[in-house]
């Protein structure tokens, strides 16, 4: 099983590389310990594949030092590097129609003498590799007749026949459907777990990478932007800085692993901005939260650039996660507790300093009834109040009628009623 991870199996020191005169990688430094699963992330063209090609000895003419198992690969032959690190490429196109077995046997190239044919040991290793990737029954088939997923299994078997302690994955599943992505990821992870293979991967899918890696190396403009544990490296701001994209960084509710989810908002893209009314940046909007009802509203207003705040929400509520991810101020209450007077007071402070108060389709019970009272207060303060009346209040009232009564009063006293969150924008 997995050994203690204290030995560096790969270390990259001051690595720089240029194609012609264009600098692709500049002063890259990182270590990978034996048995680790590491992902290299970064936008297209940042030099991820170049890095893999340098580590696997395919590219030469770099500055700096790359060591695998403490050996400087500059001093090793291609054959010896292939014994240390195997690469799973995106796809492979043999020029001639080899059989599956012939293709897998090519993985033994580095072990076979020029003057001999492969021996029994090679055949045994190839068989074992084909068994692990479940392609034994395809052995005599032509590679060209296989499906994309089968082809990739053959290539993984080829790499396993190389018997290298390090596996470099160069977007191995980006041409495949999600079932194959899962299958191959499980295969790589089991190789890591059972055979202590060190896995260094580039993945097209950022979530595939961060959910399955222990360490991330984030590249930006040919340099290491940040590297370390997933939680340290993958943040909203680091993704924004490296990819230039707005994302949520949340936790998968099932696995508790981090996940990244893009924020799609047409207003963010320059060419579509004109479709919307000009933005009143100074406008402060306070959104009443609870049970996730506020999240879409918060996201919409935030992405349009308004100053959004939210309250009162219980810790662990989806709305609080949204507010936290977007970095907007909010009033929080202890989990599963009724809103205290103190919190209500803070909420009213937010309302007082806001221009607009939005009440999304929150469910009301005795614990958060005071949120509705705060809305009533906002009406009394002559704030503009917008009520999103998507789901009938009667169905959302768990207070025995009190909420319905107060809700009607809010509307009667001048709150604007809209049917969906998109309509809010018309009243801002």
């Amino acid at each position: 099983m997995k050994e203690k991870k204290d030995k560096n199996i790969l270390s990259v020191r001051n690595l720089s590389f240029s194609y012609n005169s264009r600098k692709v990688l500049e002063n890259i430094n990182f270590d990978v310990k034996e048995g680790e699963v590491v992902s290299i992330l970064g936008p297209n063209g940042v030099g991820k594949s170049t890095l893999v090609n340098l580590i696997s000895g395919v590219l030469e003419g770099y500055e700096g030092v790359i060591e695998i198992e403490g050996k400087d690969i500059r001093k090793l032959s291609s054959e010896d590097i292939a014994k240390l690190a195997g690469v799973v490429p995106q796809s492979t196109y043999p020029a001639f129609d080899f059989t599956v077995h012939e293709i897998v046997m090519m993985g033994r190239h580095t072990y076979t003498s020029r003057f001999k044919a492969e021996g029994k040991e090679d055949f045994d290793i190839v068989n074992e590799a084909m068994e692990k990737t479940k392609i034994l029954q395809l052995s005599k088939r032509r590679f060209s007749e296989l499906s994309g997923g089968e082809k990739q299994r053959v290539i993984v078997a080829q790499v396993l026949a190389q018997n290298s302690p390090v596996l470099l994955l160069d977007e191995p599943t980006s041409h495949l459907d999600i079932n194959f992505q899962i299958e191959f990821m499980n295969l790589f992870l089991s190789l890591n777990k059972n055979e202590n293979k060190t896995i260094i991967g580039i993945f097209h899918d950022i979530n595939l990478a961060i959910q399955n890696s222990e360490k991330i190396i984030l590249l930006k403009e040919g340099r290491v932007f940040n590297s370390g544990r997933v939680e340290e490296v993958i943040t909203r701001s680091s993704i924004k800085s490296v990819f230039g994209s707005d994302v949520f960084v949340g936790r998968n509710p099932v696995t508790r692993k981090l996940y990244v989810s893009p924020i799609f908002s047409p207003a963010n893209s320059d060419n579509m901005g004109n479709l919307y009314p000009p933005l009143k940046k100074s406008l402060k909007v306070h959104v009443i939260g609870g049970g996730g009802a506020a999240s879409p509203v918060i996201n919409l207003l935030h992405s349009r650039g308004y100053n959004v705040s939210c309250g009162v929400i219980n810790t662990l509520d989806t709305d609080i996660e949204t507010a936290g991810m977007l970095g907007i101020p909010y009033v929080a209450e202890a989990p599963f507790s009724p809103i205290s007077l103190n919190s209500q007071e803070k909420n009213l402070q937010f309302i007082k300093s806001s221009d607009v108060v939005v009440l999304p389709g929150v469910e009301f019970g005795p614990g958060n009834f005071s949120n509705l009272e705060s809305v009533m207060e906002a009406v009394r303060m002559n704030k503009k109040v917008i009520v999103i009346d998507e789901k009938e209040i009667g169905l959302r009232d768990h207070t025995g009628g009190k909420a319905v009564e107060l809700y009607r009063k809010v509307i009667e006293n001048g709150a604007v009623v809209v049917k969906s969150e998109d309509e809010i924008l018309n009243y801002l």
Partner: protein
Amino acid sequence: MGTGKRTLKCVILLLAILILLVIIAASVGAAKISLKETALIMLSFVPGFNNLVDSASIDSQNFVIISQIRLPRIALSIFVGIALASAGVIFQGLFRNPMADPYVIGVSAGAAFGATIGLLFVKNSGPAGISITALFALCGALATTFLVYNIAKIRGKISVVTLLLAGIALSAMLSAMTSFIMIFRVHDMAKVVFWVMGGLTSASWAKFNILAPVVIILVVVSGFFMRDLNVLSLGDERAAQLGVETERVKKILLVMASLIAAVAVSMSGIIGFVGLITPHILRLIVGPDHRILYPASAVAGGIVLLVSDTMARTVLMPREIPVGIITSIIGVPFFLYLLVKSKREAF
């Protein structure tokens, strides 16, 4: 079954066919000599068997015809065939393209240009056994290959696409130059045209003694790189990942195959299609593994050219047809038939 065993079986079978065809080829010609007598005459050359042959049963004139006229030509045709098919396999493997042939990087145009100069401007004859034309053709072929190779070498790496394009471009230029020279020597044009069409009419043991050792050495040494050629068919990058010293192997094989092709062309002129089609046919039969394909193609190349040349000298007796015409007219339809029949291979 191991690759080694399969290869051996395949090559032995092909060699048996070849020997049989040699006897048949030696017996046909202007002088009628029976198969049996031919076989006996040939057996008398083989050490250990010559005692078995009763020399009285052999007609001395037939002995001379076979040993001094037919056999050198047969031997030469076999070795030129071996050379062309071997070079064809290597070039197709290197270029990852079944359309490549031994002449793909300009060997033929260079040889033709050299031969033209030799034929038209040099009056002295060459050193023993080799015509000055062959020598000039060899120089032309090698110089062209060298030039193409250096054009395609960028910072120590060979770009296969550049190699192909440079070969095509340089071939075009050399062909134009050959034509340009011929404008001024219209009365000599036929000589050049006949040389270019390819033939083995001037075969002799002297020629063979120069060609055979060179071909054997080059073909055998290249043979040790066939597993590399297999892996290279996955692409340079993938091959390097699997531990192939791609640039070194490519350079070695490129130089070897060019030399093989150049030597063959200088001896026989430009014989088309043998180097292209033989590897194809054998790939359909034995599969793409170069460790089997290469030796099998080499022997088969010998067979193809032997049969073609025998037809070239006998079909319109006493008139000779340039063997290049036979290889194309007979070889191409046969190849097309195989291509259509075999749906397995998707080129």
